[in-house]
């Protein structure tokens, strides 16, 4: 609507009779057609694009970082250290509660080529990750500026199917979607997806509002592997989830906001992300997290630089900083998510050797935790997200699962 349609402007300036005519088929059509929303699918980035993007860009000494809640120690020791070492200041904001709603918020600005006010954003390898790449909204990374990543990142994280060769993204952390429960109210060991559908917990079950998260659990409860699922499987899963909802089992569909209700007792058992409950437990919540016997889903949250970022050089410096094993270890110790730097395990064990008492036990447990350093056997148990072949397929998926969460 940047260029006003002439017919429309005339309509505003002429007497009322003409103005009304505007809404007749012809004039109205012109005005309406002027409002089309442009989409622009981009070709994948080439090496020359990388050079073109980074050419002439220099550091400005500041980074604006948008991340999810519960993804860093509130005291921000890593960022303080970074500022100490490099002189670059960081503004860290926990503004991402859900991938889809965050993307929808930044999309219009990115489409208009404007800065979104953040130099690093953290996006899960889901639908929105693909859209950011397809629309050419994210900067191709200059690997010449990423020495730590080259040296310390695990091989598996350099060839992830959603971004092979890390053209656009570096993993922040990997996590597992499983089940969390509050043992104060739930008096049994939870081991299976079936508990989320158990009428015994009527009105006390939390599910995610993210269509992929909820769809995945619907499918896994039916024994379907989401990664290999078909449209027919989605329908079956949707039926199961609808039944769960209509029986009154589900209390509410949550974004990141599920943790407090779980601690408060509004919900007793819920879909959950692996690290969250451990951090909540630091406040004494006493929650439990389990990967169901049928397997959980694994996902990776990735740091990306929007093309319109004001400080891309400082941003990429910070991204690389997190691949220093010492930093990665400190982060993992607090957030309890899988770190893409397995060398961090040695650092944690060294820390444990120096520590004593309760701290020593916590650190030793952490190094052995399959939720932070999964073994190949653990990985084999986990399921991956369905990658959509095209927007039509994705739209079909969303039209099946979206009505469940907005009943």
């Amino acid at each position, binding site marked *: 609507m940047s260029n006003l349609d002439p017919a429309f402007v005339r309509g505003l300036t002429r007497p009322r009779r003409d103005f009304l005519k505007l809404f007749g088929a012809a004039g109205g059509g012109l005005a309406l057609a*002027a*409002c089309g929303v442009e989409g622009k699918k981009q070709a994948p980035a080439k090496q020359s694009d990388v050079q073109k993007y980074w050419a002439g860009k220099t550091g400005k000494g500041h980074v604006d970082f948008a991340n999810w809640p519960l993804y860093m120690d509130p005291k921000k020791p890593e960022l303080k250290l970074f500022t100490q070492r490099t002189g670059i200041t960081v503004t860290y904001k926990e503004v991402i509660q859900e991938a889809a709603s965050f993307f929808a918020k930044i*999309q219009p600005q990115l489409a208009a080529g404007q800065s979104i006010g953040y130099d690093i954003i953290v996006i899960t390898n889901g639908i929105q990750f693909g859209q950011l790449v397809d629309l050419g909204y994210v900067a191709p990374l200059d690997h010449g500026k990423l020495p730590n990543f080259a040296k310390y990142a695990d091989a598996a994280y350099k060839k992830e199917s959603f971004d092979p060769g890390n053209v656009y993204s570096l993993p922040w952390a990997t996590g597992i979607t499983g089940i969390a429960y509050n043992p104060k109210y739930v008096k049994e060991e939870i081991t299976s997806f079936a508990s989320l559908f158990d009428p015994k917990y009527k009105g006390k079950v939390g599910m995610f509002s993210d269509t992929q998260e909820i769809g995945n659990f619907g499918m896994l409860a039916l024994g379907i592997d989401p990664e290999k699922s078909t449209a027919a499987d989605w329908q079956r899963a949707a039926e199961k989830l609808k039944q769960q909802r209509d029986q*009154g089992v*589900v209390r*509410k569909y949550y974004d990141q906001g599920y943790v407090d*209700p779980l601690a*408060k007792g*509004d919900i007793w058992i819920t879909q959950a992300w692996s690290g969250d409950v451990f951090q909540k437990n630091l406040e004494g919540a006493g929650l439990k997290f389990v990967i169901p016997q049928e397997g959980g889903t694994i996902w990776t949250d990735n740091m990306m630089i929007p093309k319109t970022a004001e400080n891309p050089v400082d941003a990429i410096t910070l991204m690389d900083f997190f691949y220093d094993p010492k930093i990665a270890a400190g982060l993992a110790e607090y957030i309890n998510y899988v770190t893409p730097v397995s060398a961090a395990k040695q650092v944690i064990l060294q820390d444990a050797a120096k520590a004593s008492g309760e701290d020593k036990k916590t650190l030793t447990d952490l190094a052995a935790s399959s939720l932070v350093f999964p073994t190949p056997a653990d990985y084999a148990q986990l399921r991956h997200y369905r990658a959509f072949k095209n927007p039509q397929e994705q739209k079909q998926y969303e039209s099946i699962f979206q009505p469940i969460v*907005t009943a």
Partner: protein
Amino acid sequence: MSRRAAALTPYWLIMPGGLWLAIFFVVPMVMMLSLSLQQGDVVNGFQLTWHWQTYVDGVTTYHSQIVRSLQYGLASTLLQIVIGYPVAYWIAMHGGDRKTAYLFLLLLPFFVSFVLRTLSWQFFLSDDGILLGTLKSLGLVEQDYHVLATGGAVIGGLTYNFLPFMILPIYVALERVDPRLLEAAHDLYAGRVQTFLRVVLPLSLPGVFAGVLMTFVPAASDYVNATVLGGTNNTMIGNVIQNQYLVTQDYPMASALSFTLMGALLVGIFLYARALGTEDVLEVAAR
């Protein structure tokens, strides 16, 4: 001043308001109408295809949320009248010198943000919270009793949040009732009830009408209360529209639903105006 310039004066007077409406109301409306008839997705863009089917799909998929929104809006509006009318009456008739103080007290909570107030209700009413936790430990309510995630909680939140917008217009109407009319009624042997029913109430109805306009429309299209206080089967159409715009990014569906809701509300308000026997809705509202 030439006759021609004089003839133009009214147009100059209307221009600031007219431009304001044109830029901030007509343009977005035309854009939305256009969007509602387009097809596509964010990655490939949207094109105008005159796809009226979106309206049909929207109503078929989300009719229960539309009906629920109207019901919740209506229920909360009725509750507001029941709660608000006596308050407005008391302040207007018995407030004395402290009227301003009472009105200020009424508005005091509204210096705190809307979302924050609603969130504090969520905190207060949580299943094991200050209120229910205490009642449960005293054995006064059952263990699995809960207020949040019910339609009642959403209607309660709507009523609470919009109540001052009901009270104020009624207060203004009541405040304007000439005391001499009451004296006249008394002189003509009308009792208190008669005076209220035949003098005060009819004179205050325009206030009630304005209050309904100011509360029913925003209440029926609200989404904050349903998000914060509601559960799985309390989604209002505002939530669906917000979700379609800001999560799914299905702009056509969101726009089509917005227009449908707007149409439903307009029809509702006009029917209501007819039922009230007023000839011109807006004149009454502005009175």
